[in-house]
């Protein structure tokens, strides 16, 4: 599947971000809707100074931190969420395992950079971190994810 223009839309990124971050379909939709409202409000306030990616990262990170305390591992969806059109031959099992075994920092770094295709520079600026820190987290996270994905990659 080629890159769809809809992915560039902030709302799609928000929904995917929250879903892959929490694996809770209901909460991800609610958070995405909250984030979209905050995103639009910020867009109106900042106008010319508005940076879409920076605003997206900061808003989603804020809402995720607020809702992360209420995430219950038992409420994680086993089946893929129905609100998405999943790529062919994609298995979320490695990702679910990755969520259990990795830290939130590594997981979110991988999610932003390699899933949502945000640049490392933007991510570092948004989170007020150094690029080296982001790269370090990415290396750790991807190594774990690859290790989990190694035996069953691409198999439904």
């Amino acid at each position, binding site marked *: 599947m080629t890159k769809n223009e809809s992915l560039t839309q902030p709302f799609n990124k928000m*929904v995917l971000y929250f879903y*892959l971050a929490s694996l809770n379909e209901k909460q991800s939709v609610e958070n*995405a*809707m909250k984030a979209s409202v905050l995103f639009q409000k910020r867009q109106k306030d900042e106008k010319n100074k508005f940076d879409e990616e920076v605003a997206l990262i900061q808003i989603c990170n804020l809402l995720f931190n607020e809702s992360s305390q209420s995430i219950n591992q038992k409420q994680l969806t086993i089946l893929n969420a129905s609100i998405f059109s999943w*790529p062919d031959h*994609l298995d979320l099992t490695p990702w679910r395992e990755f969520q259990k075994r990795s830290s939130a920092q590594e997981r979110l770094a991988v999610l932003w950079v390699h899933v949502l295709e945000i640049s490392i520079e933007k991510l570092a600026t948004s989170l007020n971190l150094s690029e080296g820190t982001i790269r*370090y987290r990415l290396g750790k996270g991807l190594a774990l*994810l690859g290790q989990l*994905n190694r035996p069953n*990659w691409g198999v439904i």
Partner: protein
Amino acid sequence: MELIPHLKKGKRTLSEFMARELLYDFATQNLDPQRKQAVQEAIENHPNLGKELDDILYGITYCKHLSQTRTKDEMYQKMLNDPFTFRDAKKSLNVRNWNAAYQWVAETLFVSFVFVIIVLFVPWQKWVYKIIDAKKSDISLTEMKKEKAFRSVEEENKIAIKNHIEEPNIDRKYHLKVANPNYTINKFQTIINKMGASLVDTGTANQPLNQIDNSENNDGKDEKNDISKEKIFVVSVPQNKLDPLINELKTHGEFSVINMLNNGRSQGDLAEPKPILTIQIVIGKMRVNGQAK
């Protein structure tokens, strides 16, 4: 940046630790040629690094595959058309989503409200009385009627007159000095009868005053003046006949009201003890031996 060779071999090798830190950049091809070569040599020297590099590459490939996920259009439209504010408000009303401090406050207020409602509207008194009745103890409430302490003036006079009539109060004494020592009470009695009064003691009515020994009726306070010669008669007369009686008595002699401080004796009386007639006038009827007269 060029590596500074300080070893004898002229080339600085990258340690496994440092190589591991540069594996991600090596996988994403963000290293300069020298570092890239150093990392590559380190990977050749350390098989673990090669394994980790493969893991990183697998992870990157998986993420690329995952990034192809799209939101369904109908779901997307549904979410856009969903009244977000209503859902948000609905969710915000859910107490479970509140902050812990706010939850505590809400719970406290709710419990307090329920407690107040129970205290105010539950009929506790009925239950208490039922318990008391169950113990067979009686509570009776009586209304104490207080007598009217205040009476009108007319009522007071009526009561006073009634009391005077039923139980006469002997509180008036009059002296009647008669000029004639042979004055008898018999004459006095005629007047009394005419006035509607009655003489209580008529035993000595026919005797002259100077022959009546009424010493036992005196209280003996003033022995020097020979009170034993004082004659005392008790006369009962109705209230409306008192003034006519007095006016009549005045015609019989020197009539005066007794001064009770010195037993009714004036200085003149003390100097000249004379037989005088003491009349005790009782307003109303006097009871003698239980009979009204």
